[in-house]
């Protein structure tokens, strides 16, 4: 994929949407109107957007995790649908049975997560396997954290995918913390991508705040997958710039660490780059940004006007009967 200015604009736009989604949700939380967890993905925009952008949204499939709002946007999810699903209002594809990012939208080729970390990785592998059996290559991209990487199912899924040369791409979002637990208490290897070799798959650790680098690395992974060379693991190093969810004051994170990472802000840095390269002007970006935030807030406001789904929905669809 050649990086055109058009692509650069799209990367930025998607990152801004992710960022402003966060800001809008934060506002909601502070107003006491959000329920369930509000999981900020501040600092993670480049990883979500750059990775998903490497896929073909018409052929491939996305299994995002709780901090991958950017990936949803790349896959063309519209803000209203996302909000309605998130806040479990009438019209939600989940009919109120679930919320946050747990929805699936098969038409958009998005299959959301469950809370149990790692549980969807074997599922993503199996989705690709079905097409592999049909002789079609459908790349599945999914995500896991520096904490979730320790779950046994991650191991089983990666080994399985490597043995069957499945076109699975696992993005490891190493954002330094798993809830309050730092990397040093989650694992003892140097890089989580050191695990790739042990599965016989490709793997790399990269700066997850550099959207173009993420895109480039993931594009290579997609190409490898399309050539039938199996799965890849890409560890994107970032920082979770807020608490685990908004109830968490993250006082366990050293302030200096946050300051250091603030300098690597994926959105601000990319804006500088775009402006410096004269792809967009600072004003254009400010306008875009404001519009993005106001779109988000408008979508939230529209969503909050919607009632919750009818109680009777709770009694439907435990089984699908045809």
């Amino acid at each position, binding site marked *: 994929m050649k990086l055109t200015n058009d692509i650069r604009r799209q990367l930025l736009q998607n990152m801004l949407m992710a960022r402003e989604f966060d800001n809008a949700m934060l506002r909601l939380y502070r107003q006491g109107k959000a329920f369930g967890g509000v999981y900020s993905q501040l600092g993670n925009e480049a990883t979500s957007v750059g990775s998903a952008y490497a896929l073909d949204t018409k052929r491939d499939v996305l299994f995002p995790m709780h901090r991958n709002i950017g990936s949803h946007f790349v896959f063309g999810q519209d803000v209203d649908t996302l909000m309605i699903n998130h806040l479990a209002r009438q019209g939600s*594809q*989940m*009919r109120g*049975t*679930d919320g946050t990012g*747990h*929805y*699936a939208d*098969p038409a958009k080729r998005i*299959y959301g997560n*469950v809370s*149990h970390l790692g*549980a*969807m*990785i*074997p*599922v*993503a*592998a*199996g*989705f*690709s*396997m*079905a*097409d592999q*059996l049909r002789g079609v290559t*459908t790349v*599945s991209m999914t995500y896991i954290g520096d904490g979730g990487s320790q779950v*046994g*199912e991650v191991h*089983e*899924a990666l*080994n*399985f995918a490597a*043995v069957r040369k499945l076109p699975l791409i696992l993005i490891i979002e190493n954002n330094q913390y798993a809830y309050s637990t730092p990397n040093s208490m989650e694992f003892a290897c140097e890089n989580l991508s050191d695990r790739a070799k042990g599965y016989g798959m490709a793997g790399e650790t990269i700066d997850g705040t550099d959207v173009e680098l993420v895109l480039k690395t993931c594009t290579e992974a997609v190409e490898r997958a399309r050539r039938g060379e199996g799965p890849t693991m890409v560890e994107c190093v970032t920082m979770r710039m807020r608490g685990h969810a908004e109830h968490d004051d993250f006082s366990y994170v050293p302030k200096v660490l946050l300051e250091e990472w603030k300098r690597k802000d994926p959105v601000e840095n990319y804006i500088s780059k775009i402006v410096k390269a004269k792809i967009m002007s600072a004003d254009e970006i400010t306008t875009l940004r404001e519009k993005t935030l106001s779109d988000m807030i408008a979508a939230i406001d529209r969503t909050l006007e919607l009632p919750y789904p009818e109680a009777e929905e709770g009694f439907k*669809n*435990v*089984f*699908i*009967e*045809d």
Partner: protein
Amino acid sequence: MAVLTYLEAIADGIRHEMQRDPSVFMIGEDIGVYGGAFKLTKGFLDEFGPQRVIDAPISEAAIVGASIGAALNGMRPVAEMQFMDFVTNGFNQIVTVAGTTAYRWGIPVPMVVRGPSGGGVGANPFHSRNSENWFVHATGVKVVCPAFPDDAKGLMISAIRDQNPVVFYEHKGLYRKIKGEVPEGEHVVPFGTVRVVREGTDVSVIAYGSAVHMALEAAIELEKSIGLSVEVVDIRTLVPFDEEGVLRSVRKTGRVVVAHEASLTGGFGGEIVARISDKAFTFLDAPVKRVAAFDSPTPFAPTLEKAVLPNADKVAEAIREVAAF
């Protein structure tokens, strides 16, 4: 109609569906070249090839999880647990992912998790478990426990065609011991209907899986010895449960024994009794007795295993008790 063993009948059901529907495939450990630990899939690899008879690494979570993913993408996987006991390693996938997907997403997850369960064959605590009620209580998962070859085939075909995750308990003690006539070709036994395997008027035994055979043996024995007329109802599918089918028998006899091989406490027997005692209270002439395994792992030594598991004698004793009440 051919006479098949319970094992052959299951294989026949799966083969029938694989021939009919290219989206059906099998996945499990040692099911290909080796033909499965019990040789249930013998010949499948040759007939269907390695793309449809997939030998997987020892990874029950990956096997179940990949099956879920394949099901989401239009396939109908039939996943084998080499022994049903090992489903504990794929447990999270079944209860957390498979069982909640229809409810949350409205998307079908048509898949079968199947394998040999049960004791009485001198295996050990880790090759003998009857864990069906875990999945009954999971919500969103269908649970099937056939007792006869024809049902085993017909229910397997229904399981594969179902739009939902089905956990299919085969009883390894019945695999080669139980033979019977099985319709060739298409033979569908719908979920959610009991089978009255023996008519009777004095006492009803409600059972499933291996316990159906214990009940039948007891019924024959008691008819011969004391002229008691015992009805044996095989519920066949635990989810969906044919409550009305059970109640019909209960209303007729007014005296009931519930039997299963799984351990007593917290088992599906309690559910059956609760339904009966709620919906047929006024028909009951005696307390409902349960016959089930003692609440322990299934022991290895034959002396202990025999003592701990239910059998025809124990069922007969319970029948006598409710008959005499």
